[in-house]
């Protein structure tokens, strides 16, 4: 339950099945995009550092 404009309790709007499915797919797409961004920044960082990143004094 959430609060309405007058402070009264309002039942959350329920989505119908089609709307819920669309929202689920959009959420998944956003997750994929965010995951891809993380991957891009990680791979880019390693690529920019170059092979020297593996050489460290022992």
């Amino acid at each position, binding site marked *: 339950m959430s609060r309405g404009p007058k402070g009264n309790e309002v039942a959350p709007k329920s989505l119908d099945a089609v709307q819920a499915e669309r929202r689920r797919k959009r959420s998944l797409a956003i997750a994929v995009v965010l995951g891809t961004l993380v991957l*891009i920044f990680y791979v*880019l960082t390693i690529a*920019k550092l170059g092979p020297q990143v593996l050489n460290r004094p022992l």
Partner: protein
Amino acid sequence: MTSLSNSFSADVEPQTFAASPGQGEVSDFFALLKPRVMVLVIFTALVGMVVSHVHVQPVVATISLLMIAVGAGASGCLNMWWDADIDAVMTRTAKRPIPDGRIQPGEALAFGLVLSAGSVMILGLAANWLAAGLLAFTIVFYAVIYSMWLKRATPQNIVIGGAAGALPPIIGQAAVSGTVGIESIVLFLIIFIWTPPHFWALALIKAGEYAKAGIPMMPNVAGPVSTRRQILGYSLLLFPIGLAPVALGFGGLLYGITGLLGGLGMIAFSVHVMRNREGEAEKRAALGMFGFSILYLFLLFSALLAEHGLGLFRGVLA
């Protein structure tokens, strides 16, 4: 219900699009990016990279290419946001996500702006800020200069606006080399001069649609006879520019043959369009020109890709 307030054309009534927020499918958002244009952008930017012959990290090149494509998609999205009122009037575009009511204009605007900023930033971090600046310029040029101003103001809209579609090879070369060389400038010129005969062939068939939407395309303003003459003029101009890579030494034998035959084909199709001015023959000739122009550009850039990417280069000039 959301009204779109960017309609300023005298011929188009302000449209209202019935969409509830957050109801669009993932595929609708993807359609906002004009995926077919993105494919062309990836292809031409890749050729711009390959002709540069600069060794670059494959990861950096791939991410750069992806960001150039996303930036192009973002500008397409902003174009659809701005043009939703005229898209609704034309049958070819009426089923796009915004006029069809599947996505709200505000959602498309936010989507386009976020992708624009994101693609420019990541290209800057991945490649260099010259490439990022050129991508930002391309997005602004397409979304603001072309969509918001030229498209509804002058029959030269696609001539000047064509610069935005011609820039990807320059961005590609800048991304891998950090500079803009003569190779990508020539590729820019080829796409730039190719754009008017390509679009006007379609505009000849769709003149009624454009008139209904109030867009001053060349056939509506100067008339079909003048448009056909200009199509031939641009095709004649394209012939030597299409062969310029051979003269400059980065187009080999394969490219030379493709450019020669393709250039002659463009002229032949233009003459065909000039001669067939009525009925079904007119439509067939214009469609033939439109289809061949796509094939011409594809083959020209494929030849360069094969010569520089697959090592098939055989010099024509000693």
